[in-house]
């Protein structure tokens, strides 16, 4: 069975004046894959991701997401993807329930669908106690789990996660990755940026960006063999130092 390609990128480039933030990157992501997008801070990960989710226009190159062109059909892309940003993306002054209603609503879910989704989420995540609390009162770990679930409300084909586990404790990170696995098993593609190298080990394939270019792209196992490294951390250090 031939695997379906959900993200296809060719020579995608973004320039800000003289500075080339993303320099002609190319790669493909298959359906159901957990695709890790690694790089140091400022390597161009977030910029590249913003082009794929249609909130930043590429300078040149081609990209298709969920088989829609980023230039021609950014709105069709938006219907098929979920996104969770590095900056915190739920409304602090709304309750968990209200956030779910709002985001469900603007993705075009019906009241009934929203209610069903919410009940499902409450049960899965054990939110019974806090569903009516303001988001601002929750610990960061909870907020991020909920933000992830909110990004999945409309059953997107692909979910983009921009450093989703920044600042949370190892146990929560573990739980978070369990959620990611579960989502991927259900056929949703996960596109995740991170700079935690241990998380890179959990990905099916990873790409490593250095100064706007993709320097390596393969499964963690192959990368470690190729660079004769014990861990992804070593791989990264070897690449980043050139």
């Amino acid at each position, binding site marked *: 069975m031939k695997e379906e390609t959900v993200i296809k990128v060719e020579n995608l480039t973004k320039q800000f004046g003289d500075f080339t933030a993303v320099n002609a990157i190319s790669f493909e992501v298959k359906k159901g894959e957990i695709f890790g997008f690694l790089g140091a801070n400022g390597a161009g990960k977030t910029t590249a991701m*913003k082009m794929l*989710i*249609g*909130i*930043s*226009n590429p300078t040149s190159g081609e990209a298709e997401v969920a088989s829609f062109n980023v230039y021609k059909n*950014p*709105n*069709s892309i*938006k*219907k098929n*993807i979920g*996104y969770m*940003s590095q*900056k*915190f*993306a*739920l*409304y*602090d*002054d*709304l309750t968990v329930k*209200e956030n779910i*209603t*709002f*985001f*469900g*609503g*603007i*993705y*075009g879910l019906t009241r009934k669908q929203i209610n069903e989704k919410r009940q499902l989420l409450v049960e899965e995540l054990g939110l019974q106690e806090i569903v009516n609390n303001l988001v601002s009162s929750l610990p960061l770990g909870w907020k991020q789990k909920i933000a992830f679930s909110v990004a999945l409300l409309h059953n997107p084909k692909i979910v*983009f996660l921009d450093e989703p586990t920044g600042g949370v404790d190892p146990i929560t990170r573990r739980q978070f990755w369990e959620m990611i696995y579960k989502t991927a098993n259900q056929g949703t593609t996960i596109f995740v940026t991170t700079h935690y190298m241990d998380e890179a080990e959990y990905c099916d394939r990873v790409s490593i960006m250095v100064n706007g270019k993709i320097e390596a792209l393969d499964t963690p196992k192959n990368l470690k063999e190729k660079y004769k490294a014990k861990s992804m951390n070593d791989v990264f250090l070897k690449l980043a130092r050139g």
Partner: protein
Amino acid sequence: MNTILYIIQKEFRQIFRNKGMLPIIFVLPIVQLVILSNAATFEVKNIKFSYIDTDNSSFSRELISKFDASTYFNVLAKYPSNKIANSAMLKGDVDVILEIPSNFERNLLKDKKTDVGVTINAIDGAAAGVTNVYINQILQSFNKNAQSNLIQPSNTSIKYQNITSIPSFWFNKTLNYKTFMVPGILVLLVTMITLFLSGMNIVREKEIGTLEQINVTPIKKHELIIGKLFPFWLLGLVLLSVGLLIAKLLFNVPIVGSLLLMYLYTSIYILVILGIGLFISNFTDTQQQAMFISWFFMVIFILMSGLFTPIESMPNWAQLITELNPIKYFVEVMRMVMLKGAGFNEILPQLTKTLIYAIAMNGLAVLSYKKTT
């Protein structure tokens, strides 16, 4: 359509949840309307009056008693010398010094003519002018009385040909300033609230980061903008209604014209303000910048609206600028409809201009709102 409703619901929740903001949005404007409407008066009264009487005659005392009897003047002090009186004026204790020269009575009886010195603090030029008129009026009437009391009218063959002017103040017979100011201040408050809130709204989400989250959803620009502006639009109308109620019940301001027409105009007017707010929001990165710009325009709009000072007296170039001032139109319309009972045809010019303004501003705002960078 449904999407818009979700945004509206969310905006309302956020407005009503912010306990710090609620009183500022709802209570402050009402309190200000009630209190400040009393402050805005150009009437000149309680003038701080003082005098120097070197004559000390029955005539001079009678003249002073005339000032004392007038409601315009507050006779505060009698000074022994010019020097002391001038120093009192420097300190700001008095604004008028009337100086009655020695031999005042004698000169008047003998020469039938005498001078009095009048010194007026003219920093507020307009008030000084009015004060001067009042002083002259009192002196005139004193002249007339003195004449009839002291001498028999000579049997002159030529009579004085007098032109009588009868002032008649329409729409506001008693020259009540509140009738004029309450609707005006209401206009300012409605405008300030809607401009500041809409100006800050989108830029606030930009700063917090939630706007990015909304931009990756398939929501359409116009849905987002309508959803965000509708709550403020409604808020403006609610504020107007409460204000009108206060104007009517507390200040007894007449509402001569059609309420429906006023609401029709206001609902278009608020769109202009919201469009401006949104436009500002789009072109700024921080709430601080948005606020400074809104403040800048607000001060200009207020002071050049014709509410406090007449537009006709401005130089031509400034009058041209006021054509772009939405508050000017609102103030005009409120006066025309509320106080004069003007109808649809009379306010048609203002209505048309406001409508064009609303379409232009909101068009610009929608165009300049970028979901992508």
